């Protein structure tokens, strides 16, 4: 699906019109290409005092070969265009120290390169040791969410809350937010807790892992399968028999195995578990991507439309998750990823059934995350906003145009953006990442 408006804004005439009329000016986002570095420009690092998190961040920047300079304030004089600004705010023990945010960012924010990254790292407020620290850390969210709306040209701003003693878990998350893999993740908050240290090859983080992807035949599901396979995983692609042909094409390319079934079938959980154990010796990653919409206002909602959406989007992931956990088909240390939706957070006219199911997915993540911690199984969800797919291509023109533009990046995301976020959750090195619901929405104004 091409965004014709965006293409037009790249022409000389388009540029003139956009400038003079103050029209949306969506910068084409940069996506990660295999083999390219995590970040392809200089990084400026700032901090409030010296902290463990700050040391971990700088170690990572050295690790990925980023050229970076440290500054506490006033970096404008450096005379470079930073690709990323990373600020360690974990040292903020009182609100007085928040002034450092303004001192660090104001002089340099205008210098941020196109498709730049702003990452603020804070301390998980709920785990603060004092009221003052809790307040100061909670304040960061207002800062990043506002700055996300201010930065231009495809830049994103995200906040990473790290629990005390979890600074060693920052690695995979910072890699994700620094790189073009997080192109459409903007204005989000990720929370990192403690977990076992996993060191793996960052270029093939999923090597030797088996990943189940439901709804893998097309759209976002196919992109998820491809991305996880790119990262080294063996894919088990699940889809309904109606999609046998496209599923075969995807799976032939990726070399995984295919499983044709309706996830709502009474024996679907058992069938998936049996297939995974027989053919792959169990599962490491489960992505509940299969989903449907049957939009109608509640007054006109038919029982079967309500039931079908709840069955596919919520009951199936619930039943499959429970069975995979009970049967141990999902190995300890594994990762479960749900697909929620912006509608599940913000609600949407004509989508009571869909939003109910997608909010339920968030409930599943939040309920299970603490329970699964002892098995080191992580459970997270992505909540896509407007993603350009065959499904959104069918939305009427005006509604589609509005849906695309009402976010900080002024454009729709791509299936790969959702897939990359899922790959970050799936990465065993993200051992401290659980219970997160991260939106892939370009910082949509809906339900922000």
């Amino acid at each position: 699906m091409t965004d014709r408006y965006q293409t037009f804004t790249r022409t000389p005439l388009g540029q003139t019109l956009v400038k003079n009329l103050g029209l949306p000016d969506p910068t084409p986002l940069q996506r990660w290409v295999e083999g390219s570095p995590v970040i392809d420009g200089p990084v400026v690092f700032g901090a409030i005092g010296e902290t463990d998190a700050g040391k971990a961040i700088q170690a990572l920047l050295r690790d990925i070969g980023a050229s970076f300079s440290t500054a506490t304030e006033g970096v404008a004089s450096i005379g470079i265009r930073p690709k990323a600004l990373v600020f360690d705010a974990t040292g903020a023990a009182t609100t007085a120290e928040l002034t450092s945010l303004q001192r660090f960012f104001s002089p340099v924010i205008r210098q941020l390169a196109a498709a730049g990254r702003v990452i603020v790292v804070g301390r998980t407020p709920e785990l603060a040791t004092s009221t003052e620290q809790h307040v100061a850390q909670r304040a960061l969210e207002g800062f990043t969410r506002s700055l996300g709306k201010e930065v231009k040209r495809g830049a994103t701003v995200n906040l990473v809350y790290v629990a005390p003693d979890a600074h060693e878990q920052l690695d995979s998350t910072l890699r994700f937010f620094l790189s073009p893999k997080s192109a459409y993740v903007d204005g989000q908050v990720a929370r990192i807790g403690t977990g076992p240290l996993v060191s793996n090859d960052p270029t093939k983080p999923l090597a030797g892992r088996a990943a189940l992807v439901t709804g893998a035949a097309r759209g976002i599901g196919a992109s998820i399968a491809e991305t996880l396979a790119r990262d080294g995983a063996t894919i088990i692609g699940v889809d309904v028999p109606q999609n046998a042909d496209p599923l075969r094409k995807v799976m032939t390319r990726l070399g995984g195995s295919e499983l044709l079934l309706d996830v709502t079938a009474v024996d679907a959980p058992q069938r998936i578990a049996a297939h995974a154990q027989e053919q792959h010796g169990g599962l490491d990653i489960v992505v509940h991507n299969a989903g449907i919409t049957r939009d109608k206002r509640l007054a006109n909602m038919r029982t079967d439309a309500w039931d079908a959406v709840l069955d596919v989007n919520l009951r199936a992931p619930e039943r499959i998750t429970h069975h995979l956990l009970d049967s141990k088909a999902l190995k300890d240390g594994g990762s479960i990823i749900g697909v929620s939706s912006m509608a599940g957070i913000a609600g949407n006219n004509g989508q009571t059934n869909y939003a109910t199911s997608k909010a339920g997915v968030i409930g599943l993540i939040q309920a299970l995350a603490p329970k699964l911690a002892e098995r080191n199984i992580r459970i997270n969800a992505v909540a896509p906003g407007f993603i350009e797919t065959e499904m959104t291509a069918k939305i009427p023109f005006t509604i589609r145009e509005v849906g695309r533009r009402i976010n900080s990046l002024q454009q729709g995301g791509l299936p790969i953006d959702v897939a990359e976020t899922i790959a970050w959750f799936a990465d065993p090195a993200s051992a401290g990442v659980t219970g997160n619901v991260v939106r892939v929405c370009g910082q949509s104004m809906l339900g922000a």
Partner: protein
Amino acid sequence: MTETRKVAVVAGNRIPFARQDKTYRHSSNSDMLTAALNGLVDRAGLGGQEVGEVVAGAVLKHARDWNMVREVVLGSKLAATTPAFDIQQACGTGLEAAILVGNKIALGQIDAGIAGGVDTASDAPVAVNDHLRNVLLDLNRAKTYPDRLKVLARVRPKDVVPEIPRNAEPRTGKSMGDHAALTALEWGITREAQDELAYNSHINLAKSYDRGFQNDLITPYLGLEKDQNLRPDTSLEKLAQLRTVYGKGETATMTAGNSTPLTDGASTVLLSTDEWARERGLRPLAYLTHSQTAAVDYVKGAEGLLMAPAYAVPRMLARAGLTLQDFDYYEIHEAFASQVLSTLKAWEDPIFCKERLGLDAPLGEIDRDKLNVNGSSLAAGHPFAATGGRIVAALAKQLDENGGGRGLISICAAGGQGVVAILEK
């Protein structure tokens, strides 16, 4: 209530099945059912006699045939005092008719009865569309000429487009073949396995003709002596060359060779008590001992349209105290080769049997050499309501010829239904 009586299958007769729009293209359902019924009457020596009841049906039926079976009886060699009624349970019609007659015999309500079925895919009931039908009905209601003209003015060019019955499920819009193709994919049924089943069907039916097995089961009609669809010279190579007709792309496996074609034909079966048969110098070929129906919710896609027999059979086995392996013959109607193979695979699958059927252990494998030993619908064709009668008569004869034994009948039907039964001797 009196004790139930044994229900004997005494004789059967059908006309050869013809391919759609071929030999029987101008024959009506009534013509064909009358021919099959008269052949049975002749064979059993029932000319001019009254039997307890004639129960039969057709799936595709003209509105004017609302009392078809009674009309057929009136035009047949049976006594005009023989009662009759029509039934319809899609492809299960023929077997359900036999079950109904059998039940009346078992309960002592009748001593003998005839079950049957007929269908034509050629002489299909083409109807005017709903709009024109409403106009014509309103025209009939109009009292004055100006009113009639006003009504007639509502006729539109599109009204010439008639409504033709489709071989599609009303609730999904998908044809039966499309549904079966989905089930085939779910169960991983290969093209090769389907072609092999189709090949065996043709070979077995051809052999049954060669050894004269069909001689007293069939009365030639309109010059046709054998089933028109039968290809005795078919081969796996020929079947492998056919292009797929259901499903899409490289995952499609179903061809015209491993799916039943649309056909025309009729069949009848005579059932009675032992005593009634003996009095007329007839003898029981086998006994109808158990039957069962089941239905599945295929609309939401949680179960395949044609998988209901997979549910009906275990329920019947439980009631009869039998296992799936306690049979000498299996007659599984070949709506599509994939339907038969999906059903067999489901019965072997521990997950299906536990989660969907609620059984502790799978039903298990059957001996494939006992399956459709005299051919089935892939070779003979499948005039919907006529298939049950064909199978009951042929299985009864096979059991008799074998000197006894037990046979299982399984028939899938539109609407996600299944009708199954047991014959024993």
